[in-house]
């Protein structure tokens, strides 16, 4: 090993003891004075430079959740027996695991890669996908699908032209190359995301129950193997540090505080594909005792988390780590966030077999450490992790203090002074379209607006067919993949969040995100089972933002209890703001559901003529935060639609049962843009028209554009109509026959009787032209 850049004296533990008063760059590494003091107290001496590096990345906001922990606790506390029933692995592991029946388990999680994607959209988004896929793999599962909830600045903001195509190409470039079908996501445009795009990535994996693996280093003498890509100097402290500060402070390259190396890494999806196949073969051959992916905080995280969760200690020979750049110092190796790496704990007798599998896949693997025994005393202090460099000890710490016992903050929060004024400025008072012609214009304008228009410019860049199990993908309400070819068992996933609702009322906004995602899964015919979430907010140091966060987590936790679906894991992304202006609070919620027989799924598009169209649920005059207020008036104020979990449950149960019994041919939930947009999408999906009579007790505008929740439209074959209607009646689910499907092909028309007629060709033109006009055909 040649060291060109290494400091004259290696900062060993002995050296640290000898030089207790040495100045250390803890401030540049992002630690606060009391955190540094805490660290000295834990070690009863000053940390070595390597220890300082480890603690600083692991105690960063991104890795330690120090500002969010006290709020996230509710997800674990508000759990009922109903919620526990399906839960096999809960919060705290790389991803949660749920029982989906027939001996299968599903694992899924959503994570953010927001800041790197602004700096380098393609690579930032690509490595975001790569990271979440490794989390799923580390649970023992084969990754089977991805979803990508995205947020961008306004469509007409110049930087959106740079950011959006790069991010989409990056999500596609990485996921396509891995062979993971992209089955859903979101693409939302709002000016608050300019300079702060959100790239959230969700991955779903599937395994047999007995294949669940955990991130644990146990068994004295077991070997610690690092495998995958070699370690380089890019992205040292990247994700964790970048995502843990006010963005404006941290340069994109070497200019920021603490002269950070380039914080963006280049992903190698081919390496990751080999890593997936190699790891699955290792699981299959039962060669792995414990496993952890390397993501944020790299080796610092993997070694300390594995050691902390296990029953022993760990000894690591850091100079055995294969390097791409021989000049890296030990601190840098510990902090590097080089992609496409995994760490496994393996019994000594299995090491040769392990290496053989890696060679078959051309994956480099190196024994870099060993699980050690700990004394009772050491165990009580949080275990013992020793890292050695060229024969000298450079780290000797209780791993629990690094990985799990980081600082916890009760950050101050308070309802913002402006919240009341915002809520009293409702959209219900805005001028509305009145005549049929005006309603027709409004419907067209909304259909062509950035958030409601055709997203195929984006989704056509994603492979949705690979693996041959995709039953539903964009633009369906939920993505759905088959899990078991023999039985037809499958899972469905959707992600949602309306940040405008969350701004108006973060508690309700988080619940509305949950309700919508839950409803989407149910609409596809699946039974909602469990939740993952990605909480994207501004700076936690701003009491207004912290209040939004506190309200959103409380809302989500209580909502999950109401719906009986546990939160299994997720991610928090803070500091999403440009200067003083935070993004809309964006608690993205992903719901996973299960369906016994994927052939019974319900697609969203009307498929044939002459079927009865029913509107399910209750429509109220709810226009604040709506897409109509946003697009037509540029208005945001008032209170969001009412949350009604009992109604959501009734609707979901009806839709899942109707799918199972073949009572509905199509179903589509109502959300952004209300009934109008739902009809647009249901008609355009397969080119089938509709003749609709709006309920007489409602103002036509409200009937078309209100965004009341717990609603859906369904197409029911005439033969099933009475059965379907009586089932709704039994559980008092409001169901209004509002028309029938009529007309096929481009000659077909969407007709709202007494108001307007709109040829599908004209509608399609408006709906599909928006993104190509902005980003090129």
């Amino acid at each position, binding site marked *: 090993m040649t060291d060109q850049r290494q400091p004259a004296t290696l900062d060993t533990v002995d050296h640290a003891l000898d030089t207790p008063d040495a100045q250390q760059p803890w401030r540049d590494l992002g630690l606060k004075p009391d955190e540094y003091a805490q660290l000295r107290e834990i070690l009863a001496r000053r940390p070595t430079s390597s220890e300082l590096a480890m603690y600083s990345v692991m105690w960063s906001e991104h890795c330690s959740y120090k500002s969010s922990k006290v709020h996230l606790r509710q997800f674990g506390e508000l759990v009922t027996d109903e919620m526990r029933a399906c839960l096999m692995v809960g919060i705290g592991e790389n991803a949660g695991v749920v029982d989906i029946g027939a001996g299968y388990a599903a694992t899924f999680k959503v994570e953010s890669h927001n800041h790197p994607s602004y700096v380098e959209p393609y690579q930032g988004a690509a490595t975001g996908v790569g990271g979440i896929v490794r989390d799923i793999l580390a649970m023992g599962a084969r990754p089977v699908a991805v979803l990508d909830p995205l947020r961008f600045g306004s469509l007409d903001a110049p930087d959106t032209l740079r950011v959006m195509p790069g991010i989409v190409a990056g999500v596609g470039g990485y996921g396509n190359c891995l062979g993971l079908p992209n089955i859903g996501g979101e693409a939302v445009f709002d000016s608050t995301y300019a300079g702060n795009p959100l790239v959230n990535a969700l991955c779903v994996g599937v395994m047999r129950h007995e294949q669940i693996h955990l991130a644990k280093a146990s068994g004295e003498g077991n070997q610690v193997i690092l495998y995958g890509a070699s370690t380089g100097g890019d992205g040292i402290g990247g994700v964790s540090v970048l995502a843990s500060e006010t963005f404006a402070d941290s340069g994109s390259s070497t200019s920021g505080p603490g002269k950070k190396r380039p914080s*963006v890494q280049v992903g190698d999806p081919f390496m990751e594909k080999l890593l997936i196949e190699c790891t699955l073969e290792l699981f299959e051959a039962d060669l792995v005792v414990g496993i952890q992916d390397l993501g944020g905080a790299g080796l610092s995280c993997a070694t300390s988390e594995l050691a902390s969760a296990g029953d022993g200690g760990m000894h690591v020979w850091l100079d055995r780590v294969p390097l791409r*750049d021989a000049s890296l110092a030990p601190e840098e190796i510990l902090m590097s966030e080089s992609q496409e790496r995994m760490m496994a704990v393996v019994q000594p007798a299995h090491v040769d077999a392990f290496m053989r599998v890696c060679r078959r896949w051309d994956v480099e693997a190196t024994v870099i450490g060993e699980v050690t025994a700990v004394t009772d005393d050491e165990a009580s202090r949080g275990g013992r992790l020793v890292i050695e460099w060229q024969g000298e000890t450079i780290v000797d710490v209780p791993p629990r203090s690094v990985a799990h016992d980081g600082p916890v903050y009760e950050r101050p929060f308070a309802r913002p002074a402006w919240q009341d004024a915002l809520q009293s400025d409702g959209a219900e008072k805005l001028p509305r379209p009145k005549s049929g012609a005006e309603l027709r214009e409004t419907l067209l304008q909304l259909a062509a607006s950035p958030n409601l228009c055709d997203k195929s410019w984006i989704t056509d860049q994603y492979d949705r067919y690979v693996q041959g199990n995709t039953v539903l993908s964009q633009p369906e309400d939920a993505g759905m993949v088959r899990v078991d070819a023999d039985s037809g068992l499958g899972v469905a996933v959707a992600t949602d969040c309306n940040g405008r609702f969350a701004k108006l009322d973060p508690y309700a906004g988080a619940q509305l995100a949950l309700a919508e995602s839950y409803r989407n899964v149910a609409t596809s015919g699946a039974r909602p089972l469990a939740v993952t979430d990605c909480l994207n907010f501004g700076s936690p140091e701003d009491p207004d933002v912290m209040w939004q966060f506190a309200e959103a987590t409380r809302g989500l936790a209580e909502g999950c209890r109401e719906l009986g679906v546990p939160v299994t894991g997720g991610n928090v992304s803070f500091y999403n703001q440009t200067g003083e202006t935070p993004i809309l609070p964006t608690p993205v919620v992903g719901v996973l559901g299960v369906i016994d027989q994927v052939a019974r799924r319900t697609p969203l598009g009307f498929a044939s003529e002459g079927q009865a169209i029913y509107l399910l649920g209750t429509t109220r005059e709810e226009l604040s935060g709506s897409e109509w207020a946003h697009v037509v008036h540029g208005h945001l104020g008032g209170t969001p639609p009412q949350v009604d979990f009992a109604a959501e449950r009734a609707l979901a149960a009806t839709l899942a049962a109707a799918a199972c019994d073949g009572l509905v041919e199509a179903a589509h939930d109502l959300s952004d843009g209300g009934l109008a947009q739902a009809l647009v999408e249901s008609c355009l999906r397969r080119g089938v028209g509709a003749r609709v009579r709006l309920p007489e007790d409602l103002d036509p505008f409200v009937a078309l554009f209100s965004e009341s929740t717990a609603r859906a439209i369904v197409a029911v074959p005439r033969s099933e109509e009475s059965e379907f209607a009586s089932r709704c009646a039994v559980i008092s689910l409001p169901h209004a026959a509002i028309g029938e499907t009529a007309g096929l092909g481009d000659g077909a028309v969407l007709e709202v009787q007494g108001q307007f007629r709109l040829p599908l060709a004209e509608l399609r033109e408006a709906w599909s032209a928006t993104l190509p006009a902005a980003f090129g055909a």
Partner: protein
Amino acid sequence: MARVVVDVMLKPEILDPQGKAVHGALPRLGFDGVTDVRQGKRFELELEGEISEERLAELRKAAETLLSNPVIEDYTVRVEQQ
């Protein structure tokens, strides 16, 4: 008429998966003794008229903003008179 060549390479510390793949393939084809391969992009721009210092400065800006991403890439610009 002049030709300007812009070479864009990933910064040395950034992973280059493409170069790595080529590096891995060479020995399999019997080419040994190669210790590293980096793969980058080469742009050839044909320009009308003379190349003034000012135009060259403009081109450098194009290289920096359009042809490369300075976060991960370095570039060089050179004129090949014809």
